[in-house]
């Protein structure tokens, strides 16, 4: 009986403010169900990527399958789905949440409800998840579980009277968490006899099996040998294996409605396994796709160049490897006068861009220069043609441009009431067009239409700082709008540095030019000669700064006969300059290209 089977499945995720113990709880659940032996738990299993651990964020969704023998004597199949935690990956998160019926909300018994707690709860509520609060860290002397329980009830409006009080660190109360999952979260529903509908909520590339899809079976079933069709792309594959991850591959005879597992079908290209797509039976297809699919289109572009030109091929190989596992990363070769040969890369957002560049530097040991991120502008030329420009250097001369359009997004900002004023001001400064404001209890949701180019700057930081971390936001691309845009050039020692050019709104050009010049003045170290820095629009200089010449750099004494020692000192000094890029006669630190983005206006 299908229902009886599904009665014993629970699909859930864990949500929490950073450092409230999400990963530790996940580890503990896996350990208790024997997915991992204690001694094997060298590190937190779900956050396996170094970068993820370091930043305390999860970048890729993952699902782990566990078996739990409950107090009612029944054994339940539990699927824990870990989700990314950043607005760049909002779409990925929404697909992962769509695969769940419930969420564990971990709240730190010493910290109480915090900014991300709320933001996460809102997202879970949007997906109609049953939220079970869990009060963690009760072993700490400063724990105040009763107060925190009251906070959860007052601020979030969840009944926390039965919230398990646990310490994931010392392993206290873990069984209560399991019992809550089993007794309070709904079992999945779905018709096993209906045509197959499997929601792809993540995919990754396995060197031996090709691209593998993580799926939630919404209806029907899938088994090896079935010919499946990706409803969005239309591509068809023959299923080789299905099963669960725990966390190794555990093949099964079939995945049925309500299951969360993997499908391997010798898929060569990860781009055929799009997050949000629906997999169906090619012979007996579902009538329609599952809702919510969005194609992951790169929204932000930047140039990535090796500091050492000889690393170009290595960079190319590294990007290819990363793309195997990341369908939302795009790249193609480009050249810059200032930086030489590199790649124009497309990302979901700024964090995605930062993560990719950090992985390139760490996992592939590359020294990189990244240029200012840009969105894709539509340039309408006087001859009637339309040109997509994602690199300011490719902008045609002003005389050939009839008008330009830039991408706009619908931004929704959730915030406690007291920050509304400050956040509206921020949105105004970012050229936002106010749409409406919706009250949700003592919280407010602001709706704005904003140029994407403003969002990719420092919007995230500003929103967080002006709301003391309590506001969260999401955005959705909605179209292009005509805009008064100009190209801003930076000149170093009289020469335009193409890698620093940017397209900006005319009204902002002066301010940005001034602030870029000031920033560059700060990040370019003093050199032997004075270096003028200028900002120019269409050949007209609008701001000027000067990096003064260095004043003194000489060794007073020469250590008697030990000449080698002196040479080594100079060699060290030379090595220290390795991260500098020679642009004409000026040496610019690699960081300068990114640092100019972090501007307080």
């Amino acid at each position, binding site marked *: 009986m299908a229902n009886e089977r599904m009665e014993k499945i629970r699909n859930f995720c864990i949500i929490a403010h950073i450092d409230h113990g999400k990963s530790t709880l996940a580890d503990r659940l896996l350990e208790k169900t024997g997915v991992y032996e204690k001694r094997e738990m060298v590190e937190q299993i779900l956050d396996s990527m170094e970068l993820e651990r370091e930043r305390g964020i999860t970048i890729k969704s993952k699902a782990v399958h566990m078996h739990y023998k409950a107090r009612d004597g029944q054994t339940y199949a539990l699927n824990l789905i870990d989700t990314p935690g950043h607005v760049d990956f909002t779409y990925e998160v929404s697909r992962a949440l769509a695969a769940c019926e419930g969420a564990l909300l971990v709240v730190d018994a010493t910290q109480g409800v915090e900014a991300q707690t709320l933001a996460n709860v809102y997202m879970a509520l949007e997906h109609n998840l049953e939220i079970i609060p869990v009060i963690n860290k009760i072993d700490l002397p400063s724990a105040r579980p009763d107060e925190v329980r009251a906070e959860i009830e007052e601020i979030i409006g969840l009944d926390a009277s039965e919230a398990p009080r646990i310490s994931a660190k010392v392993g206290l109360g873990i069984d209560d968490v399991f019992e809550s999952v089993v007794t309070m979260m709904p079992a999945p529903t779905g018709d096993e006899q209906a045509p197959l509908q499997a929601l792809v909520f993540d995919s990754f590339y396995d060197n031996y099996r090709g691209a593998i899809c993580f799926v939630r079976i919404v209806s029907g079933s899938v088994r090896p040998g079935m010919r499946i069709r990706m409803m969005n792309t239309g591509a068809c594959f023959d299923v080789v294996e299905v099963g669960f991850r725990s966390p190794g591959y555990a093949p099964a005879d079939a995945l049925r409605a309500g299951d969360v597992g993997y499908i391997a079908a010798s898929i060569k290209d990860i781009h055929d396994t799009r997050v949000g797509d629906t997999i169906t039976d090619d012979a007996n297809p579902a009538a329609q796709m599952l809702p919510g699919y969005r194609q992951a289109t790169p929204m932000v572009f930047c140039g990535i160049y090796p500091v050492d030109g000889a690393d170009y091929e290595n960079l190319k190989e590294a990007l290819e490897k990363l793309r195997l596992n990341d369908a939302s990363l795009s790249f193609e070769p480009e050249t810059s006068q200032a930086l030489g040969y590199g790649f124009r890369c497309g990302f979901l957002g700024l964090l995605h861009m930062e993560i990719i560049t950090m992985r390139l530097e760490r996992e592939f040991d590359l020294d990189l220069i990244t240029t200012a991120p840009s969105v894709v502008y539509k340039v309408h030329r006087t001859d009637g043609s339309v040109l997509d420009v994602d690199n300011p250097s490719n902008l045609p001369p002003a005389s050939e441009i009839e008008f330009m359009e830039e991408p706009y997004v619908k931004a929704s900002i959730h915030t406690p009431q007291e920050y509304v004023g400050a956040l509206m001001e921020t949105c105004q400064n970012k050229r936002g067009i106010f749409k409406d404001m919706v009250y949700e209890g003592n919280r407010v949701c602001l709706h704005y239409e904003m140029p994407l180019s403003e969002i990719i700057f420092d919007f995230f930081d500003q929103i967080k700082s002006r709301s003391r971390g309590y506001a969260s936001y999401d955005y959705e691309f909605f179209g292009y709008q005509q805009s008064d845009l100009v190209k801003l050039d930076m000149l170093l020692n009289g020469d335009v540095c193409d890698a620093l050019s940017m397209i900006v709104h005319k009204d902002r050009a002066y301010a940005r030019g001034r602030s870029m010049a000031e920033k560059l003045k700060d990040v370019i170290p003093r050199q*032997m000669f004075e270096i003028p820095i200028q900002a120019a629009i269409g050949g007209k200089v609008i701001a000027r700064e000067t990096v003064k010449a260095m004043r003194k750099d000489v060794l007073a004494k*020469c250590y008697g006969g030990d*000449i080698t020692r002196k*040479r080594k000192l100079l060699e060290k000094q030379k090595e220290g300059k390795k991260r500098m890029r020679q642009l004409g006669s000026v040496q610019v630190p690699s960081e300068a290209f990114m640092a100019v983005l972090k501007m307080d206006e």
Partner: protein
Amino acid sequence: MQEAISLYVHIPLCVKKCAYCDFASFAGRLSQRARYVEAVCRELRAQAAFFGRRRVRTVFLGGGTPTLLTGAQVQRLLDAARAAFDIAPDAEITMEGNPGTLTMDNLRAYRAAGVNRLSLGVQSFDDGLLAAVGRIHTAAQAKEAVRMARSAGFDNLNLDLMYGLPGQQPAQWARTLGEAIALAPEHLSCYSLILEEGTPLHDAVLAGACAPLPDEDALLKMDDITAAHMGEAGYAQYEVSNYARPGRACRHNLVYWACLPYLGVGLGAHSDLDGRRFYNPDDWEAYLRVAESGETAREAEGEQSREARMFERMMMGLRMVRGVDAARFARDFGAAPEAVWPETIARMTRGGLMAREHDRLRLTPRGMQVMNAVLVAMMEETDSKPQFGG
């Protein structure tokens, strides 16, 4: 005929280590100084047996504190040097000394032994600063030392001074310079303090346990003060940190800066001789063991590449105001400096940091201030080109 050389003798003995010092020298080994002198004498013989009885144009007894040796010990060392090598009759024979260690008898004996130039580590005429950096003498003792040296017959005198000391004000530096000049030495060295890792002063500065070091503005002001005082008093700058009355430049140091050959004996001493670079152990026991066995305790630094030699010629030569002998450079390396570093030299010349006059390539006063950056630019130019014969 073999090239004439310079001879350096290292005396690694001190009453007490100064807070800024990272040189090879030891406090508390005075009882072993006779043994050390004998070991150096043996090394001199062993080196001469290996390199031959070279003509020696300059001798430098450095330290440490060579004036911790008795007159007889210095006599013994210089006799051994004369026995081993052909010391020129007009050789410059310099001895370094600490004003806190001098006696009239010793000074007379040093002079009689052949020492004809005395270099006194005065550092400052400010007793507070002297104490702050762990010097064992006072300003008054320094003045007395100069008087004694003169009366012992030293007519070629250098005073070592330091600036950029913790808490030092430009006005204090001006006073020290004034007092030094009033003593009318033939030569003045003015060293900007280099904070060396592993020294007590380094730790104290980092920990904030002493007055902060002067900032760049103050240091540049002190540079200006130095230039003004020296010019007015008739001392010409001939190297980054060195000033002399006409004809009184230190010939021994000029050998280092011109990359001419020298032999260093004693603990930790470095040599550059017959195209080889080597040095002695800087461990007390290790040095004595080898020297007393009659061996030459040379650790080779390995072959210097042509590129390294060319670079070092510039690195050392550009320290001198008159610069590098470009004609000799071209003779030795088969290419003029302008052919080795065409871009850097052209850029530096255009920018007013370098100048070529006849056979010499030199840094301008402005270029001298940023010499490290100029040298690093040369290294980078070398790196950017494919290696010869590679």
